[in-house]
């Protein structure tokens, strides 16, 4: 019977599961909303894994994310910083063959990872596959995915629509960093009759600036900057980050699973 390496990343918004085979190939991805109980979510994941015939008893399961302690069937729990570092290195590091058009410029064993999560933003520096430094935002939703979620709700837009619209806007700014105050700022912009494109631009611009301010603290020109987390699916976000940091920001389809991939990889250690 083959052995699997399963990583479960219970974030504040969504729960990501990755199954790796013994050769570290991704063979399954499961994405679920975290919901109100990470314990219940972890049980649903367990059920799904069994349904998909991954022998859980014979697998190594590592949990991460803020709900990591709720995964009772995990063999161990590792912080999301370490896992995101490992996962991003798997996706963007030197052990993967091709990473994008500017491949030759990038120094693949010196990564700066930006993960914009649901309730926190992490900046992680990874050298040769290991975390060497990291920063996390304060205990507030400024500069996190939650900020974008609240704002897109105020504009009655989905995330992809928000990004799409933002790309056509310009010249409007939100000054508040606090999500609650920024939301009322957005509402007064709406009341003033500001174009939706411009408001969308201002929303994304505000989070990009905030995240880059944090990233600048660890960024050095010899680093390859990578975006992970749910927002890595939106090209407008990685492009805008790149513009602000004046460097290419790499993103990949599996970026959202970086934490889960890292957790699965921790099972090999």
């Amino acid at each position, binding site marked *: 019977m083959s052995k699997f390496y399963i990583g479960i990343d219970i974030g504040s918004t969504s729960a990501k599961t990755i199954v790796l085979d013994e050769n570290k190939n991704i063979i399954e991805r499961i994405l679920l909303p975290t919901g109100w109980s990470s314990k219940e979510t972890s049980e649903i994941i367990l059920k799904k894994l069994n349904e998909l015939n991954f022998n859980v008893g014979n697998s190594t399961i590592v949990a991460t994310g*803020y709900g990591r302690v709720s995964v009772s069937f995990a063999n161990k729990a*590792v*912080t*999301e*910083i*370490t896992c995101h570092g490992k996962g991003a290195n798997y996706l963007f590091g030197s052990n993967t063959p091709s990473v994008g058009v500017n491949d030759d410029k990038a120094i693949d064993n010196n990564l700066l990872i930006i993960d914009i999560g649901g309730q*926190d933003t992490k900046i992680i520096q990874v050298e040769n596959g*290991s*975390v*060497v*430094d*990291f920063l*996390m935002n*304060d*205990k507030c939703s400024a500069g996190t995915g939650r900020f974008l979620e609240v704002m897109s709700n105020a504009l009655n837009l989905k995330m992809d629509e928000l990004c799409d619209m933002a790309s056509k806007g310009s010249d409007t700014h939100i000054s508040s960093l606090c999500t609650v105050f920024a939301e009322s700022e957005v509402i007064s912009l709406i009341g003033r009759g500001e174009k939706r494109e411009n408001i969308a631009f201002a929303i994304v611009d505000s989070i990009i600036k905030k995240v880059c301010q944090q990233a600048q603290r660890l960024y050095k020109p010899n680093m390859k900057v990578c975006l992970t987390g749910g927002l890595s699916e939106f090209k407008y976000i990685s492009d805008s980050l790149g513009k602000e940091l004046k460097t290419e920001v790499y993103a990949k389809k599996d970026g959202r699973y970086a934490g889960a991939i890292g957790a699965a990889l921790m099972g090999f250690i």
Partner: protein
Amino acid sequence: MADRHEMWKSLGMNIEQHDVLCSVLPGAVGDVFMSQKNRPKGMEFWDMVVADVHGIRPAELIEEQKKGRKVFGTFCVYVPDEVIIACNGIVTGLCGGSQFWVPDGEAVLPKNTCPLIKASVGARLGKTCPFFRIADMYVGETTCDGKKKAYEILGEDVPMYVMDVPQMKRPEDIERWAHEIALFAKKVEEFTGVKLTVENLKKAIHIINEKRKAMQRVYDTRKNKTLPISGRDSLLMTQISFFDDPERCATMCNKLADELEERVKNNVSVVDAGTKRILVTGTPLAIPNWKLHNIIETTGAAVVCEEMCTGTRYFENLVDENINSLEEGFKALANRYMKTNCACFTPNTGRIDDIKRMVKEYNVDGVIDCNLKFCCLYDTEKFSVGRALKEANIPVLQLETDYTDTDAEQLRTRIGAFVEMLNK
């Protein structure tokens, strides 16, 4: 344990409120301290004190007051205990380390004041701290703007004396501090009715030096690869030393040090071999603030040193005992106290040198630099501390926190990730 309610009532305390505090403390002590394995036997003394922290020492202080001795409450390690002890006074620390007191402080102070100041003011105004009821005089100092202004508010309620701590360390500043100590001595003489002499000052310097040496001995044992005492226990010892009689403090610390040295010889460690060793630096951890140490030590690492006011800044450096006049005494005191490196000075590169030295002395794997929220001085100094440590290839994690438990999980994640990083 004796029932202290009569004493608290006679001190004019808010008994109902204070009972709330008394009811949560045993649980906290149990979680943080009693859950540890293989503790040194010598910790029994501090366990006994902390179990009756608002009773055992206050009762002694009241007895001494009956004999005519005066009690001075102090807030800071720059206040020279020697002068007070020489004039037969007693020095005590004050309350300020719990969220419990913060709301009463916020009633008069801006919310964005550091929790230590809010808790201190709240403990006095809310009448929920016996030390704040007992002290005959409060000695403040100008080590931060928040405290300076808070003393004005406290001063309306209690007799307050404020020492002007210089902001720089040029020779003329040290001279000025000696003069400031002389002025303070005059005040203490007036207040206690005891004249300061070379003899009693010399004796007091010796007493406090002996206390410092004893505390240093305990800390010295933490430098060994075999770690004979946890960070939590060491911190408790240090926190209580601010309240205890200095001679008894020295005796108890020396006794503990004897045991710890024996443990080192016999390879008795409180942690598994290879456990990562952390130095914490930053703002003070007033009793009962055990949050940071508790998170670090339940996340797989050990605290081996505190470069803090509740740590090495309190007892490193001795005062020259060889004095022939009061003037020489004040100079000797000024010289010692101005060696303490606080972020209220500019520049304060001495603190960075201290941290780097202690990283070597205590065999440290990583530094956690943590300040209380709204402490602008230590927060700003994080930039130069972080840069200097990184340049020296010393891993550092920089945090900000307060007395609430709301960020405990976030701290656990950051500290956990830091420990994982050190373990890689």
